[in-house]
């Protein structure tokens, strides 16, 4: 999941670079390299995002898509587990009566095991979401 913004952005690099949305070529400051008068902007990619050029939009779109795919993945797993349990109990009624540690199986799962599982899922999500954001920041700030 981490490599995606980079690839998506690289494909569009040639199209929008240096062009404002109006289509006019960007104004270029010409200075002697010896003067300190006009330092280059340090992070031109954030400017692409600010000016909503096509390149900026591609970068933003890739960030939103990466994070959304991650969110959707977590929600799908959650839906399968949570939505699957009642279905399982409905289709395999014997499961409802299985005893585990002297307690009925549904109780062991719903009143116990499910909570650490939720916390673990949340922890993994936070780790991956922060990684995605770091990758995006690296990508945007490196140039």
């Amino acid at each position: 999941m981490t490599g995606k913004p980079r690839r998506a952005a690289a494909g569009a690099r040639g199209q929008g670079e240096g062009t404002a949305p109006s289509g006019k070529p960007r104004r270029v400051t010409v200075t002697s390299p010896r003067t300190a008068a006009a330092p280059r902007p340090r992070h031109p990619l954030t400017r692409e995002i600010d000016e909503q050029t096509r390149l900026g939009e591609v970068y933003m779109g890739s960030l939103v898509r990466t994070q959304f795919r991650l969110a959707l993945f977590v929600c799908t797993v959650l839906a399968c587990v949570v939505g699957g349990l009642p279905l399982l109990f409905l289709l395999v009624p014997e499961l409802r009566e299985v005893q585990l540690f002297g307690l009925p199986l549904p109780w062991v799962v719903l009143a116990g095991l499910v909570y650490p599982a939720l916390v673990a899922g949340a922890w993994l999500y936070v780790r991956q979401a922060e990684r995605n954001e770091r990758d995006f920041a690296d990508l945007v700030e490196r140039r």
Partner: protein
Amino acid sequence: MSQIAAVVLVMLATVLIGAFGIRMSRTTSDFYVASRTVSPLWNASAIGGEYLSAASFLGVAGLILTFGADMLWLPVGWTGGYLVLLVLVSAPLRRSGAYTLPDFAEARLESMTVRRLSSVLVVLIGWLYLMPQFQSAGLVFGTITGAPPWVGSLLVAVVVATNVLSGGMRSITFVQAFQYWLKLTALAVPLAFMLVAWWSDGTPGLAPGDEWALPLHGREHPVYETYSLILATFLGTMGLPHVLVRFYTNPDGRAARRTTLLVLTLLGAFYLMPAVYGYLGHVYGMPESDTVVIALPGRLVGGPVGEFLTALVTAGAFAAFLSTSSGLTVSVAGVIAQDILRGGVRAFRVATVLAVLVPLALAGAARSLPVATVVGLAFAVAASSFCPLLVLGIWWRRLTTAGAMAGLLAGGGLACAAVVVTITGGPHTGWAGSLLAQPAAWTVPVSFTVMVVVSLLTPSRVPRGVARTMVRLHTPETLNVDRGDWHPRYM
């Protein structure tokens, strides 16, 4: 007697800790969001304290005792809702800069009409949530003193109003954090004693073939109702007004995520316990009622220790009434003051009184239902209105003003109608009864569908600043990009 002393102690502690915050809250910004200086553990404890209402402390165990295994889904959903909130909403919502749900609606859709509709829904959800809190305060206070129900309701309402009026959000944060740990202790310590008593009784278990412990039984349409309950609780959490306002007190989006993870852990620890109360209540043949949590320690552990434990759970119950009611009152009052009155600290005070009085009157007038059932209905309304607004608003650029309006009206309206029919009339039977008592399974899809279809039909009404808003919602704060100049209106 010791129970009454415990109640007085909790109320005094709440007022005193609240008063502690007065010196620190001077400006309007303090009043609303505690100036964003709250650390993640404080913040997570405060969210937990605010969230664990009478429905969690008393209601879950009562419903599990009454209906059996299907009700185990209620605490699972109330915890799992934070996972859905975490992955879909938490960081972008914090980055949006909105204090409240109406703020978010305005920031994302650039429309005052959507904002006003959201305000109305926030107030309705808040009142629907507050009403059963006051009702069960009356029930518990009546059980321990013999007073009529309205006395306990009034008492809690007065303490809440005083506290909110005197300290605002800053003091509420301290109060709420304190309340979480109080509630956890008040449930855990008696439970430890009861488990010892249960052990020395020879660990009595369920009778063989006891239907009560099996999922999918006992109600008319258990499969539908189970799925509807799951949908309402998992999706409704993100739309609760008193939960979202807390996210603003995180310094940035990353902290908002970490706070949510911490909240999930704290809630998971708490929700391990009500099921055990319900289970023991069934094994020892307790009467099916919301007060089982209060009555059980005295039944299992006799003597002065039993009396002390009963006082402790009673204190926990009142902590639950006070904390949730305070949080809800702040949110409802904030929305009333900002969007209906003209704003300012004075308007906030008038709004606070209004926010408490209406549900107090409703508590006296409405049919008495189990507290967790009514709170479940509030979740269903939130899931059918704010969940689609937040999810589509954050992730889908083509959401339009018209689409959001139509979805909020259709989903929120249908869910509210089902709630009114269930609370005022009823109990209804058959499929109609199940559809009305657990509306989420049909109102949530209706709301999402209407929002998407109407948005696709009105492409010209996509908000003009949507690209900038997306940058604001999704880029990490470390990046120096233009996030637009929208700010929530200061009162």
